[in-house]
């Protein structure tokens, strides 16, 4: 049993950057759930955090956009954004190069991955880590997923990547925590920004926590985009983690449709035999 924790959380910059702009009770519930999950993660004593995080034009451009990129560097710096804007201090987080290289080698038997020794962490990883591992001293293996621009890796493929990841790390001696970041419904940077599809988000959370993630893996990208906005392509990270921990029990710790953060914000965790 080496998956000691499996979590998924939204990463809207407003969560740390402008929490006061949300209604206090809404922000309070969400931030409290985030902090609570941080305590839970700490109690699980992970040796390494595998963070599945979406690319946001910080590491890759249209001249070379990997579907999946594993960070095999000695360390990773973040946030890439202005720390004063995100209100998360800029730090250097240790990597786990030995495990990351092993992960790459073993996963590559079934999934084509890219790797990089240098990856900048942006709000996608830094906002969740700010609550989940605030000391920023736990070794991290980032896995960047293209949830950003077409052609996207199919949802089905992200789900399969998660299955392979899960099968692999279960056999590791290290205590591994899996963290998915992103989503749920949002239309970032668009005229529709601020719109949230609560019905989609709740349906997604229910499926994920009830072991029915395949239902969303079968969704067409066009349907996701029409219903829940381009930001919802980030459910790829959630699907991967849900697939990795199939059989574990999922639980929603928070869901708040926070207009001031322009995102359907959710936090979920999986528990049971990993």
């Amino acid at each position: 049993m080496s998956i000691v924790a499996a979590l998924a959380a939204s990463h809207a910059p407003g969560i740390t950057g402008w929490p006061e702009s949300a209604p206090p009770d809404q922000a309070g519930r969400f931030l409290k759930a985030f902090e609570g999950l941080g305590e839970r993660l700490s109690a699980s004593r992970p040796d390494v955090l595998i963070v599945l995080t979406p690319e946001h034009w910080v590491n890759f451009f249209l001249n070379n956009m990997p579907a999946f990129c594993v960070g095999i560097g000695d360390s990773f710096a973040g946030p890439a954004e202005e720390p004063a804007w995100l209100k998360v201090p800029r730090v250097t987080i240790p990597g786990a190069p030995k495990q990351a290289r092993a992960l790459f080698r073993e996963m590559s038997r079934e999934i084509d991955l890219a790797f990089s020794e240098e990856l900048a962490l942006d709000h996608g990883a830094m906002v969740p880590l700010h609550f989940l591992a605030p000391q920023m001293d736990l070794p991290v293996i980032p896995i960047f997923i293209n949830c950003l621009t077409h052609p996207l890796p199919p949802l089905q493929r992200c789900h399969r990547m998660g299955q392979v990841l899960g099968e692999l790390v279960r056999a590791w001696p290290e205590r591994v925590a899996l963290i998915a970041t992103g989503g749920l419904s949002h239309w970032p940077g668009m005229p529709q920004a601020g719109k949230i599809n609560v019905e989609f988000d709740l349906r997604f959370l229910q499926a994920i926590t009830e072991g029915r993630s395949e239902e969303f893996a079968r969704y067409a990208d066009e349907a996701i985009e029409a219903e829940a906005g381009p930001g919802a392509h980030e459910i790829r990270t959630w699907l991967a983690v849900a697939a990795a921990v199939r059989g574990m029990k999922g639980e929603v710790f928070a869901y708040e449709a926070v207009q001031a953060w322009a995102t359907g914000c959710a936090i979920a965790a999986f528990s049971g035999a990993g």
Partner: protein
Amino acid sequence: MSLYLVQKLFYHLNVDPKVRSRFQKDAEALCAEYRLAPEEIATIKEADLAALYRMGVHPLLLRPFATLKGIGMADYRRALAGADKERR
């Protein structure tokens, strides 16, 4: 119009402080290095967000560009209102 090159410039503005500083000093010279057409350079210099959005610039490249040009969220939204209907 080269959407790819406009976006490439915006990406570099995002990730490279040296490119940002050159943009602030002489936007036209920098844009010329990206082989942008005169009308594209004008659109960028004027920060015509609706035109850039309509030509298909990715919203997560456009939003940081707007920030660089000192355009706040409220003005950004006002500039884009209605622009999605004609987006490429």
